[in-house]
């Protein structure tokens, strides 16, 4: 099938212009829904970065002195192992290398801070998941005066609260976005249907003179994908700008700084948004083409 790129580009841009209002509506709908998805994803990335130490239900960290001799570390480990099954559900040891990679994640937005600290400055730690979170301080007290232990730190209620709130916020955002995405698919179906209807004479002639079915379909399908893609590009830019606005409002080196997603996270989110946008556009136009274009 000889279907030139030039032909598809010409047909698609003509269709998009002819149906300007409907096209704009569909693009805006994709844009709004994907911006919400993007905000949810970036928020999630920011929170999970700030709370990297407290993942997997860890409630207590026993920080060792970086200079503590190995036998002191082994003593703490042995004692913790003895409590597994009673007060301690599980624990793991985070080496200096592990601590450094966490540190880099947390301060991804402050490169100058990262440079001033090296791996050997950071304390290794035991991450403890207690059997009963309310008894955590009783467990911690036993270790705070052990030789080689620098300090015992507990997960603060604020962090736990933050994790819960952002979880519900994400669920709400994603539900809203899914509804809006369904609406976007419907709008794209309708736009393509109108494009097919406004060109029914041409389609009839094309069938008559023996144009292949794909030759007739492809410009309509590309039209839907372009709508999805344009909405997604706008949404990616919006998410990126929003994140920068928040970043500049928060200010550098502020403690909230850690909550702002890194550029890396934003780029990942942008790619996800573009993929979803193209998929939405393709789904809408495929549905329209198969239902309303009898070729």
């Amino acid at each position: 099938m000889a279907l030139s790129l030039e032909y598809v580009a010409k047909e698609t841009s003509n269709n998009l212009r002819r149906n300007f209002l409907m096209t704009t509506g569909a693009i805006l709908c994709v844009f709004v829904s994907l911006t919400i998805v993007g905000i949810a994803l970036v928020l999630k990335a920011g929170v999970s970065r700030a709370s990297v130490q407290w993942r997997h239900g860890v409630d207590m960290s026993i920080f060792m002195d970086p200079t503590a001799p190995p036998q002191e570390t082994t003593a703490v480990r042995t004692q913790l192992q003895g409590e597994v099954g009673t007060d301690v559900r599980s624990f793991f040891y985070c080496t200096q290398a592990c601590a450094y990679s966490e540190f880099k994640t947390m301060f991804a937005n402050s490169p100058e801070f990262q440079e001033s600290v090296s791996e050997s400055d950071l304390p290794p730690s035991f991450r403890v998941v207690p059997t009963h979170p309310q008894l955590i301080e009783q467990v911690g007290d036993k270790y705070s005066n052990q030789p080689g232990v620098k300090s015992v730190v507990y997960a603060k209620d604020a962090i736990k609260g933050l994790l819960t709130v952002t979880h519900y916020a994400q669920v709400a955002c994603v539900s809203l976005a899914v509804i809006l995405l369904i609406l976007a698919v419907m709008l794209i179906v309708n736009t393509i249907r109108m494009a097919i209807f406004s060109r029914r004479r041409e389609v009839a002639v094309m069938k008559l003179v023996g144009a292949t079915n794909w030759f007739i379909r492809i410009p309509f399908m590309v039209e839907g994908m372009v709508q999805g893609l344009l909405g997604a590009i706008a949404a990616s830019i919006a998410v990126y700008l929003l994140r920068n606005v928040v970043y500049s409002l928060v200010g550098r080196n502020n403690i909230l700084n850690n909550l702002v997603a890194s550029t890396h996270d934003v780029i990942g989110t942008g790619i996800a948004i573009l993929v979803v946008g193209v998929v939405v556009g393709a789904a809408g136009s495929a549905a329209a083409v198969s239902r309303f274009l009898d070729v």
Partner: protein
Amino acid sequence: MIRLDNVTKSYKNTTVALRDCTVDIAKGEFVFLVGPSGSGKSTFLRLLTKEESPESGHIWVAGKDINELSPWKVPFLRRNIGCVFQDFKLLPNKSVYENVAFALEVIGVTRAVVRNQVPQMLDLVGLGKKMDNLPHELSGGEQQRVCIARAFVNRPLILLADEPTGNLDPSTSEGIMRLLHRINRTGTTVVMATHDRGIVDRMRQRVIELDRGTVVRDQDRGVYGYG
């Protein structure tokens, strides 16, 4: 070139459009399809382009049994068949040139060929000087010539015409018939459904008469009817 073998076609199982119809048309023939409205002439033509499928019987077009044709091959069947209509079916927002070029573009012909073929075709139908006009700026006869140019531009083996002179006055019709005859002389098989008694009687070609879906007469060098 075209063969129908005991073909029956009815709509919604009540209206019988064609009943046990057997016809054989050789390459290069010029055939008139006559009969009153509703006798099955249009159905006959639509079966040949596979816009309709028969309930029973077989249809061969250009050596192929088109019942066996898979759907994706139908466009390639239609590239062998040009169609001319009573209402022309031109695209109103495209110029004469673009209307004819469109038929080539959508089957993937290169631009060089389009630029070469379209003016040549428009000269053949006598519209070489009106290439840039829009269809509504042309007379009925001229519009029909554009339609014929579009049907014939990719040199199909068969030309089907469904009452091509139905909307035209007698002298304009005469010109269209001369054009169709000329196309026929290039070796193209022409099948024309018509109500125009004068034309059929003058041309003296093969006449197939249908009545309520049945072939009632198949006559070489025939006339419109005895009645």
